[in-house]
């Protein structure tokens, strides 16, 4: 049970549910939550490979720290954009953001 494949399967489930959320949700913040799920699944993969790959250093851990920092920056910028979208369009429905359409 405590094998590489079980962790990779959990990460694959998280990834495909995140993809589903990004594709089907209409609310911009719900799409952001799907992206967080995808980043988490990538992190699980990094750390699982670091543990089971037989390497003696911790490169996977450092990489997942970078991913977490990028997720923080991405969440801050995305929420600023969402709040501006709400101010300009009056809703956070991504279908309503079609101002660039000719």
């Amino acid at each position: 049970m405590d094998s590489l494949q079980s962790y990779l399967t959990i990460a694959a489930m998280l990834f495909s549910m995140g993809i589903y959320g990004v594709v089907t949700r209409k609310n911009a913040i719900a799409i952001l939550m799907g992206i967080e799920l995808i980043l988490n699944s990538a992190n699980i993969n990094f750390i699982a490979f670091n543990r089971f790959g037989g390497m003696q250093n911790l490169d996977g851990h450092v990489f997942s720290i970078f991913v977490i920092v990028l997720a923080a920056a991405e969440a801050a910028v995305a929420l600023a954009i969402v709040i501006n979208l709400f101010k300009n369009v009056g809703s956070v429905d991504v279908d309503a953001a079609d101002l660039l359409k000719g």
Partner: protein
Amino acid sequence: MAEYLFLFMAALVIASAFWVVFSPNLIHSAVSLLFTLFGTAGLYVFLYADFIAATQIVIYVGGILVLIIFGVMLTSKIDSPSIASSSANQFIGGMGAFAIFVMQVAVIFNTPWNIGSEQSRDATVGSIGKLLLTDYLLPFEIISILLLAALMGAALLSRRN
């Protein structure tokens, strides 16, 4: 005991992630994301990544999730009883996501992974600190500047004019 704990963590992660993407109420999605992040931190503990588990709880649960809930609160009418979040293209999206999952599982179980020797279970904080200040010094500094720039840009963008 550890076996059951691992199964519990995995089930928690999967079930709460399911509810994140399928819940019709946005606040329920956000609260469910909390459980997903905590369960992921538990999985990190099982992978001997103590520092990453603590970082996950501090940054994701303490920072990003609070930011997301603030975003939900700021962009919906708070007096409405349920903050709805509708979905579209559920069939096509579901089929696409399921196809991706099947492909990933096929790759996971057909690849002869190079399983190495068991990693030591020492604390990882010291080694990560040394790596960040020797091998990964340049990426560390670059990502610090990126985080600073992103936070300043976010503050500037969301300022009231």
